[in-house]
């Protein structure tokens, strides 16, 4: 699903990854660990085509990551950043926003599906009527994860999904994300419990060497 060979990246003259290799099979749950500043988020941005590859090769769904394939690659991915500020009114607008894109219109969930997803994430349905500035960072994050899951993509990329969540919420999200057999998940996290649930862990502390 994701194949990375000899990836090297320099940032401000400093080496971030040195000939880093990674192979992620379909359905695998992979977590990137490491201290802050080791380039975990940068790595996700690189996979999403937001940062250019300096050296090495990246293949996603058997397609080399380049300008010709980027639209196809992104069309198979759902992504939730660590912090998200959208200039929207309600939590509902935020939740349904990705389904407004042409590519996702046919995936807009009905009320039942929305209710089930929110319930599984420990969120009440009336939360959708609340103003975005009235809900917490953790609720926002869970809403974005729920929405990303409902997009039904093959790969889910989560940047620090546990950052604003308490222990119970982390377990709820993990249950939803890790139990989907066909879904390939690439996440970054500092949370020990989340890391332990993963099939593979890559530590970026020492320029991307496997633990």
């Amino acid at each position, binding site marked *: 699903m994701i194949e990375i060979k000899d990836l090297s990246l320099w940032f401000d003259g400093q080496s971030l990854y040195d000939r880093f290799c990674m192979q992620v099979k379909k359905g695998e749950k992979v977590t990137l660990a490491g201290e802050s500043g080791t380039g975990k988020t940068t790595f996700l941005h690189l996979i999403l085509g937001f940062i250019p590859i300096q050296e090495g090769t990246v293949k996603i769904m058997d397609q080399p990551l380049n300008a010709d394939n980027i*639209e196809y690659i992104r069309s198979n991915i759902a992504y939730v950043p660590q912090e*998200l500020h*959208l200039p929207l009114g309600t939590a509902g607008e935020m939740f349904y926003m990705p389904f407004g894109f042409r590519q996702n219109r046919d995936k807009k969930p009905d009320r039942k599906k929305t209710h089930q997803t929110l319930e599984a994430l420990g969120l009440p349905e009336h939360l959708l009527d609340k103003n975005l500035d009235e809900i917490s960072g953790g609720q926002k994050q869970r809403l974005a994860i729920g929405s990303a899951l409902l997009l039904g993509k093959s790969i889910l990329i989560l940047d620090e999904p546990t950052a604003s969540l308490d222990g119970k919420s982390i377990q709820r999200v993990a249950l939803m994300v890790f139990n989907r057999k066909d879904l390939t998940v690439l996440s970054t996290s500092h949370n020990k419990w989340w890391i332990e649930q993963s099939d593979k862990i890559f530590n970026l502390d020492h320029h991307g060497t496997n633990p």
Partner: protein
Amino acid sequence: MEQTLDIGYLNLLLGYLLIALPIIIFYHFRTGLVKDSLIAVLRMTLQLLVVGVYLELLFEYNNAWINSLWWLIMVVIAAFTIIRRAYLSLRYFIVPLILSLITSLAIIDAYFLGVIIRLDYFFDARYFIPISGILLGNCLKTNILGLNTFYQKLHQEKIRYRYYLANGASYGEARRPFMREAIRTAFNPLIASITVIGLISLPGMMTGQILGGSSPEVAIKYQIMLMLTILVATLLSVVLTITLANFFVFDGFGNMKNNVLKKNQG
């Protein structure tokens, strides 16, 4: 037609005494604007004196080629000013801006002068130059606001833009919210001024026409047409500039290139 009363040069100098007041206030509050405002007044004076001489010649010859050349010079100066004031890279924006200003101005000039006023001589300097100048002046303001908002927001709110792209938005869909915000920022002041025109402000052209001896009725008709054409020309130029510039400003992955915005913003 009644002639407008001339202002004697001595009286004009008396007028300059007025700027003593802003200078004192700027100085009192240590705004750092004393030098800038003095330079601005000096530049305005010199520019208008030069333009005055040039316009006298333009009106005397009233030649289509010379008038068009002046029109083109105004467009190029406006394009450079917009780029500088919106803190954008000359390299990516100069061609799209010149093309979009020429296109929007040509269309609206043709409609205003050719269809509405029905001039016998389209390039008549008395109409062609001042009307194009007013349209261009407004394009300048809205383009600075619109372009600055669009590209600054894309830069500052990268996470939001990337979130759209990485969740299935096409390039157009991902940039649409930023375009909406740019248009709102650029056109709110113009729409507000159209709303209150005549109530709390008498526009310059209308005042000029009345001072020049036109009847208020004629001046009002011109002003109505002018406000409508300003709205259309400015909107057309902002949307066209951003649309054209986006071909150069983004890489093949939809990311805004690093050197699009000038770094040394004050």
